[in-house]
């Protein structure tokens, strides 16, 4: 029952703790990586805009986080020749310096870490696309500690995926993805491929393409809008009571590269929703509290922002 917050610098820790973060994740590029592997990203985000600058700052993050765990993403979907050896050694060093776990997607890196006896410290990235209980069991048998569920699952499906002997983490706030992240074989280093998807597709009606563009706009924080300072992107806050009942251990607030005000606002509203849920509030009460802070009730009432829209009954009105 923890709020997992993103960060990219030690200067962010205090504000995020104050906002209600229970645990942290960040990205860090190994020393010497760029000289050997060029511009390939080690953890799915640009090191300049989303990464912790260096190991020294990572150690400061761990110190300032105190007893709150800090996880490090080494979660590129694949790595070039030679990278797994470097990253597995780097992973060991990160754990020795206080990382509580490593977020991994690439199967070779995952196997290298489990062969080194570090499986329990591995969190399976959402990029590995574990979306059924049989797959979860496979990874449990490899000895990993946590599975991060991908974004595009219904609550009913999540309930069918969770198995004993593993922690599960679910997306809670921010940063949608048009495609299944683990099945998107493109790179944001060349610009988000999905930005131009839809337009230019022959034989798809204009109405459908318009709906597609609107949906993509909501995934992209409704055109980067905020409501009273709170992000207007994908949101699963009302689903917390159901996810808690299912057994989700950690709720992910996404956005390592975001500004500190956005991160802090996201964690604050997430922590408030979790607090209400722990007090027994139902989804409607949580939604009302979210709308009171964020505004834009229509976006909630019409399920435009929902990570888990099956929480609410579908309306029959045409749009």
């Amino acid at each position: 029952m923890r709020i997992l917050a993103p960060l990219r610098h030690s200067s962010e820790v205090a504000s995020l703790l104050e906002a209600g973060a229970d645990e942290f994740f960040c990205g860090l590029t190994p020393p010497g990586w760029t000289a050997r592997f060029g511009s390939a990203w080690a953890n799915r985000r640009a090191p300049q805009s989303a990464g912790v600058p260096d190991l020294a700052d990572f150690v400061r993050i761990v110190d300032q986080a105190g007893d709150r765990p800090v996880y490090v993403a080494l979660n590129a979907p694949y790595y070039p020749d030679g990278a797994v050896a470097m990253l597995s050694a780097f992973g060991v060093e990160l754990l020795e310096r206080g990382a509580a776990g490593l977020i991994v997607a690439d199967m070779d890196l995952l196997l290298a870490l489990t062969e080194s006896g570090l499986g329990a410290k591995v969190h399976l990235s959402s990029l590995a696309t574990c979306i059924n209980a049989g797959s979860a069991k496979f990874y449990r048998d490899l000895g990993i500690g946590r599975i991060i569920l991908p974004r595009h699952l219904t609550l009913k499906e999540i309930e069918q995926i969770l198995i004993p002997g593993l922690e599960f983490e679910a997306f809670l706030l921010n940063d949608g993805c048009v495609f299944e992240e683990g099945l998107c074989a493109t790179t944001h280093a060349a610009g988000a491929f999905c930005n131009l998807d839809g337009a230019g597709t022959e034989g798809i009606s204009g109405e459908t393409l318009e709906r597609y563009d609107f949906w993509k706009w909501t995934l992209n924080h409704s055109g980067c809008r905020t409501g009273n300072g709170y992000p207007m992107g994908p949101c699963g806050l009302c689903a917390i009571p159901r996810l808690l009942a299912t057994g989700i251990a950690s709720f992910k607030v996404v956005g390592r590269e975001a500004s500190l005000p956005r991160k802090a606002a996201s964690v604050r509203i997430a922590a408030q929703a979790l607090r209400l849920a722990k007090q027994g509030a139902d989804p409607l009460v949580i939604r009302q509290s979210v709308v009171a802070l964020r505004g834009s009730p229509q976006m909630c009432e019409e399920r435009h922002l929902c990570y888990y829209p099956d929480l609410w009954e579908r309306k029959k009105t045409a749009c």
Partner: protein
Amino acid sequence: MEYGIHVHDANPLPPDARDVCEASWRTMLPPGPLRAIYFGSEFCADLLPGRTEVRRYCSQASSLNVDAVLLTPIASPGGLARIRKLLAGIADIEPAPAVVFNDWGVASLLRDVFPHFPRRAGRLMNRGLRDPRLMEQAPASFSPEGDRGRRLRALLAGLGVGALETDADIEGTFLGDGAEGLQRVLYLPYAFAASSRNCLVKAEEAESIDQCFTRGLDLPCKGPCRGRWHRVDRPDTALPLWRAGNTVFFEVPQCRAEALIRQADRIVLQARPAP
């Protein structure tokens, strides 16, 4: 070199497998016999064939004296249940079709419950970069002796999997040098760029936006994408792109394909992009 053909109906196949491709590919591909027909879906459980269709494909393969290969997708809980039901319904077919898995849950199901089906690891097990915007800048040659995918291949071989399949990625070394004893399979001429459960073609059937994309995940799909593929024009790549169902495909540059073919034992030819 040997060939497989990805089929979508039981129509007669050409005597030369390469004839399912356009002329430029026919002349580029090396000669070789047809050894397998592939059917099913790697991207969407709603497109899986029924048991009657599978029997028809298996019968066709048997009459051609080639292998029958069932493609299965990455699977939600409902998709996994559907695959389990299908496998149970075709478990008596002799010889058993091989099954391509693209999901560890499906792989485990095959190993634990249906061990008599020969197993093959599908192209979604390779999460390598296939960005069409970068494909033309990819190196024209590469060494298959690197360590990329080595542990995965060893794991697969240890689990009794017989083959590793992929389409054309940029790194180009996923299939390795064959040391693990896995048959190495390359899909041509189309590679996938991105796939999603939030299907644009499924959304065409929706009555309102409240049934589309994320909000339509819990709704059944009638498969309006069957037999349809849509040309996609983008300003950021000159490669030919298509959307077929929930997936965006591109045609692999032939210079890239030539380099990859040297690592493959089998080529699976696709007459058209299909999810």
